[in-house]
């Protein structure tokens, strides 16, 4: 498909050596602009390795086969500087635990404007205006106050919003969200998911959502890639994968996600 933001073809990843067993094997998928693609699987499925490969963050010991094209450019052929440029400017990253990405001793303002001043040669005041706008865009009620606070002064949900806002200031074309809601309470998770959908609708960015939670996938993904043991077991539009799964593993994953109503009747422990 042309025009894909990111195009992964026959990706294989081996840790330790070319002869080591493949952690990921024969994985192919695209993320198009304005599309939320979910990579879903349990621990050991290889989904995290794939996301690291897309961000070029794999350790040196990993042997990567196949290709990853970002806006038509082969990431493997990119130099270090070029890759850093892509990662800083074109791809925004959101991780499970915002605290690992936010520097605890720097104010939010400092962290959000640093990249703009350095990569975009913006003036401090312009960068600050952009950061404030981004904080407002992700639904933070008092952006000024949050700008002047430090990461530990914010709640988990607020930190996740700040991280999303920070990713948005650079106006990326692709957002990679690796388990963005796993560390959050359900009510906050719902807000963050709504936010991701809203950002997609507003900016037309592509979103690669990596998660273990098929329930989250079912609510927001346009396309679903189901992984198990390093392989893609099923891949298709959400209507097909979620509503009419073909593979036994996908069915099992969906079956294991109990709806509350099912849980009520399924429990059998109460009358």
């Amino acid at each position: 498909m042309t025009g894909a933001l990111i195009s992964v073809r026959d990706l294989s990843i081996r840790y330790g050596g070319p002869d080591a067993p493949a952690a990921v094997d024969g994985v192919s998928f695209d993320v198009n602009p304005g599309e939320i693609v979910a990579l879903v699987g349990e621990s050991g499925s290889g989904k995290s390795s794939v996301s690291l490969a897309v961000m070029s963050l794999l350790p040196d010991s990993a042997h990567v086969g196949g290709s990853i094209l970002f806006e038509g450019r082969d990431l493997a052929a990119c130099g270090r500087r070029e890759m850093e440029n892509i990662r800083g400017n074109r791809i925004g990253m959101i991780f499970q635990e915002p605290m690992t990405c936010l520097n605890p001793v720097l104010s939010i303002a400092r962290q959000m404007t640093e990249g703009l001043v350095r990569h975009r040669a913006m003036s401090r005041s312009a960068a600050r205006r952009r950061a404030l706008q981004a904080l407002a865009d992700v639904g933070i009620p008092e952006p000024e106050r949050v700008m002047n606070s430090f990461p530990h002064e914010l709640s988990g949900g607020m930190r996740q919003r700040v991280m999303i806002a920070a990713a948005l200031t650079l106006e990326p074309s692709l957002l990679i969200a690796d388990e963005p809601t796993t560390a959050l309470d359900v009510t906050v998770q719902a807000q963050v998911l709504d936010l991701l959908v809203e950002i997609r609708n507003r900016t037309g960015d592509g979103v690669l959502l990596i998660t273990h939670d098929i329930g989250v996938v079912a609510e927001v993904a346009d396309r679903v890639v189901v992984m198990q043991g390093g392989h893609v077991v099923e891949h298709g539009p959400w209507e097909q994968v979620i509503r009419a799964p073909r593979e036994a593993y996908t069915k099992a994953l969906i079956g294991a996600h109990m709806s509350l109503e099912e849980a009520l009747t399924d429990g059998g422990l109460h009358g």
Partner: protein
Amino acid sequence: MADQTPAPAIEVRDLTKSFRVNGRDVHALNGVSLAVGHAETLGIVGESGSGKSTLGRIVVGLETMSSGEILHEGTAISGVGRAERNARLAKCQMIFQDPYASLNPRMTIGRQIHETLRAHGSRQLAHNLATAAVLLERVGLPQDAAGRYPHEFSGGQRQRIAIARAISTGPSVIVADEAVSALDVSIREQILDLMAELKGTTSYLFISHDMAAVAKFCDRIAVMHKGRLVEQGTTRQIISAPQDPYTQSLLEAVPRIGRRR
């Protein structure tokens, strides 16, 4: 008590736990009262900071309460001597969230169960190891599991071991604190089924943020928010007809297959 109905297995009355932070009292628990009947499973749901874990830790004696009362079989444990208090607390067991940290990495599985049984008065190693083998088989582990170390097992298997250890002394109350939250969904269901299968006459305090797991496993549900109990009732009442706005928002936020954002 001359009451017709037997006293609940465990009951807490007006439980309060406060910490002093920067000279200000912060209430982790604020006047919580609830009871778990014999062989009943009570689910405690709430988000982080709701106080649900603190409640569980106080019930098993890991933390002290600031004020209130805990009753075992109708007897307040603050009113009895130290020896009897310990004996009553020994009837409580706990299953933890993290299947990696809840087992001693340098002790064989059999020895860990032996240590639990030993604390319970059964001092013979050979006898306890035989008991351990039977327990491990009941939770679906291979026969040689007793002689192996925790690192040889997967997360789901370790949680099975933790369950075997918790039921080894025949406790009257088990507090399960997010016992399935760290597990993959497919394994989560297996562990829930196992806990249901081995439930017997034990009462459970099933603490979780996972509404679906609570709905599946529990007879009744208590909803906590910011240290207070906002609502409690049968599982069907809480899931199908929640009264409190907080419960409603909590249920609304649970991801659903078939709904789109």
